[in-house]
C-alpha cells in the first residue's frame, strides 16, 4: 500500500503539487491522468523519491520513502521516467542486467541471468540482447528500459508515460504486459498516461489530477464520463460504451 499524505511541492512561488492525500492499494493498475502541468509526473517522482517533497510524507508498505535507505526501497519500488538518455554505450542485455543491481551489487549470479533472460523474453527483446542501445529505435529502447524495471522485480512499479515513442501495436502490448504483471505476479503498477482511452480500458483505478490537486479517484466507470472529463481537460467529450469498455471521443 502506498499512502500519500499532504504532499506539497512548489518551485519558487509556483505550486506544482498541492496538498495531495491519497492511498494506492496493493495490486492492479492505477493510472494518473490530467492535463499538462497538472503535477502528475512530479507526484510520481516524489513517490519514487527522485524529488524531495516540501511537505507531507509518502509511505510504501509502512516505509517512509524520504528516510528509508535507498537499497531497501530499490527492492520494493522502481520507477521509469520519460527521458532516459544515456552517455555510456550499453548493450540491451547490460542495461537489463542493471535491474538486478539492488540484489547483487554488480555481481550477477546464475539466478540473475535467469531473471534477465525472462525479462528480455517478456518484452520480445531476445534477438536484440547484444545490440547497443544507440542502435535501436525509440520504441525498442523504451522496451529495453521497461525490461530493466521488470528485472528489478519490485512489488511496486511506477511508469511515467511508458507509451511515449511506441506505435499502436507496441503501446497495446505494453499495457497488456503491465496488466499481466499486475494480474499474474501481484504487482502494483502506477502509470502516468496521456491517452484517456488506454487509461479507461486497462486501469483498475484512475486518479485525475488538475492544477496540482487530486481531483478525482475511482474506477474507470466513475471517471470516464463526459462531465468529469470535460471538467478535467476543459473541452467537450463524448463517451461511448464499446464492447464493455468506455471510450472517450474528443476529436470533434
Amino acid at each position, binding site marked *: 500500500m502506498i499512502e500519500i499524505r499532504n504532499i506539497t511541492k512548489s518551485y519558487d512561488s509556483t505550486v506544482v503539487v498541492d496538498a495531495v492525500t491519497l492511498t494506492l492499494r496493493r495490486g492492479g493498475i492505477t493510472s494518473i491522468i490530467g492535463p499538462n502541468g497538472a503535477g502528475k509526473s512530479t507526484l510520481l517522482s516524489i513517490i519514487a*523519491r*527522485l524529488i524531495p517533497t516540501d511537505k507531507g510524507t509518502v509511505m510504501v508498505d509502512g516505509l517512509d520513502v524520504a528516510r528509508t535507505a535507498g*537499497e531497501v526501497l*530499490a527492492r520494493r519500488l522502481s520507477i521509469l521516467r520519460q527521458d532516459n538518455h544515456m*552517455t555510456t554505450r550499453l548493450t540491451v542485455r547490460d542495461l537489463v542486467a*542493471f*535491474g538486478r543491481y*539492488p540484489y547483487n551489487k554488480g555481481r550477477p549470479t546464475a539466478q540473475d541471468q535467469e531473471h534477465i533472460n525472462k525479462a528480455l523474453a517478456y518484452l520480445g527483446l531476445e534477438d536484440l540482447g547484444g545490440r547497443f542501445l544507440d542502435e535501436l529505435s525509440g520504441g525498442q529502447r523504451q522496451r529495453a528500459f521497461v525490461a530493466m524495471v521488470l528485472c528489478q522485480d519490485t512489488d511496486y512499479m511506477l511508469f511515467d508515460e511508458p507509451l511515449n515513442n511506441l506505435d499502436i501495436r507496441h503501446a497495446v502490448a505494453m499495457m497488456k504486459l503491465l496488466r499481466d504483471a499486475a494480474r499474474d505476479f501481484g504487482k502494483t503498477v502506477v502509470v502516468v498516461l496521456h491517452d484517456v482511452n488506454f487509461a479507461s480500458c486497462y486501469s483498475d483505478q484512475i486518479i485525475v489530477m488538475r492544477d496540482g490537486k487530486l481531483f478525482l479517484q475511482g474506477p474507470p466507470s466513475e471517471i470516464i464520463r463526459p462531465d468529469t472529463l470535460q471538467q478535467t481537460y476543459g473541452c467537450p467529450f463524448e463517451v461511448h460504451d464499446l464492447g464493455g469498455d468506455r471510450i472517450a471521443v474528443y476529436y470533434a
Partner: protein
Amino acid sequence: MPPETRPSGMVLSLMALAAVVCVVAFMTWGSRGNWSFVLPFRGTKLLALVLVAYAIAVSTVLFQTITNNRILTPAIMGFDWLYMLLQTLLVFGLGAATTSAIDPRWMFLIEVGTMTGFSLILYRFLFSGGVRDLHLLILIGVVFGTLFRSLSGFLQRLIDPNDFVVLQDRLFASFNTIDASLLLVSAVLVGLASLGALKIFHTLDVMALGRETAISLGVDHRRITMIVLILVTVLVSVSAALVGPVTFFGLLVANLAYILMPSAKHRYVLPAAVLLAIICLVGGQTVLERLFGFDTALSIIIEFAGGLFFILYLLKGASR
C-alpha cells in the same frame, strides 16, 4: 560490433603490454654509465609520471561518470586557474626569490590544501541544499575559474618583469623538474583516494546511468557524488601540484579509453584510461628525451594532441 569479437580483457592486456614497453624503454634506452645511478635517477621520474598519469586518468573518468558528460574534465571546476592564482599571489606577494626558496614540501601542502579546501567549500553548497543541481555547481566552478584567471591576469600585469618570467615557468606543466621529496606524500594521498574509490566502485556503473535510474536502483546518488567529487579534488590537486596544470590530457585518455574498450564498465574503462595515460606520458617523455633531446616540453605536445582530439570529438558529435 558484438562484444565477443573484441574481448575487453584482450584489449586491456595489449595496453598493459604497450605500457610495460614504454616503461622499459624509458628506463633503459640510451643509458650509459653506472646502473646504480641510472635506475634511481630515472626511477623517480618514472614514478612521478605514473602517479600523474594515474591521478589524471582516474579523476577524469570519475568526474565524467558523475556528470554524465564526456567532454567535461575536472579542470572546468577552476582548479587549474586556482593553481595559477595561488602561484601568482605567492610570487606577487613574496617575490620570485622568496617563493623559489620555500621548501617544496610546504609548497606542495599549501597547494593541495588550498585546492581541496576551495572545492570542499564549493561542495558544501551541495550538502546544505543551496545548490541541488550538479550542473549548477559546475557552472559556479566555471565562474570562479574565470574570476581566478582574471585576478591572476591582473596581478601578472603589475608584477616585476623578472618575477613574471619565473612565474611563467612555474605555470607550464613540467615533467622534468619534479621534486622527488614530494613523491612519497603524493603516492600516499593518491593511495588513500584509490582506497576510497574502491569502496564505492560497484556503484560507479550505476551512477553512469544517470541520476534518476541510479536512485531507482537504490544508489544514494548525492552521497556518492560527494565522495567522488572529493576523490577527484584530491587527485587533481596532487597532479597539479606535482607537474602543474594539464587541461586536455584527461579528456584525451578518458575518451580514447571509451572508444577502445568494447565494454563501458568501469572495471575495464578505468584501467584502460590509466594504461593509456601511462603510455602517453612515459612513452612521450621517452621519445622526447631520447629522440628530440629535450627540445620541447611534453606538456605542450600532449595539450596540442589533446586539444586537437577535443575539437575532432566535438565536430563528430555535432555531425551526428
